């Protein structure tokens, strides 16, 4: 009998000054369940020297840090935008 896997995998992108740290950050991330963008950012932030403001998008839409991640999500972390 094949065991069902509870592991979910997401893709993570980093932009702006956070992108400067992407060598130290994962581009894929696995978790079991009830994992939020906030929990993920806490874990990622502990790997890098960044304490500024942060925005997060999932599947190209802004979300907050309480968003519950789903398998296949594309997550992006970046500082406040500076276009124009």
């Amino acid at each position, binding site marked *: 009998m094949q065991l069902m896997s509870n592991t979910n995998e997401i893709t993570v992108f980093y932009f702006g000054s956070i992108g400067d740290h992407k060598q130290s950050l994962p581009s894929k991330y696995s978790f079991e369940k009830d994992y939020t963008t906030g929990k993920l950012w*806490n874990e990622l932030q502990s790997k890098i020297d960044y304490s500024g403001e942060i925005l997060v998008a999932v599947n*190209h839409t802004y979300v907050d840090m309480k968003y519950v991640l789903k398998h296949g999500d594309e997550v992006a972390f970046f500082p406040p*935008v500076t276009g124009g």
Partner: protein
Amino acid sequence: MKIEIAEQQFDPWQQVVDYKRDKLLNDPRIGASSVFLGTMRDYNEGEEIESMFLEHYPDMTEKYLTEIVNVAIKKHKILDGLVIHRVGEIMPTDPIVLVATWSEHREASFDATREIMESLKSEAPFWKKETTNKGFKWVEASSKNTKEEVINEV
């Protein structure tokens, strides 16, 4: 509507003329054309800037710019809107962003152009990295352009 992320320098005035002639077919309902052009300065916060790199988040940028212009079309009942934004390496005096709108009367295009630009500044995922004689520096968002949903606490 046209949204374009431009990797090469563009002529904003020619773009406005071409769009109105070729896409709007010089629509005779147009009574007002409003244009905002942002260009690169050679200084920022007292420092001389040699060049700038503009990064963006592909797909999300186009998605938000499209939404921003759609909101302006509905809210102000403008006839159409055009946004072109540079990415990549940019030099002083180069155009960075062009916003143009067309409407029957001036209030609508004035207001729509300004609102598109203000929303772009706070929502569209672009980031500027400046080169000075001391090295590279990411530009920080001014508080008035910071998206309200910025959340540090978890």
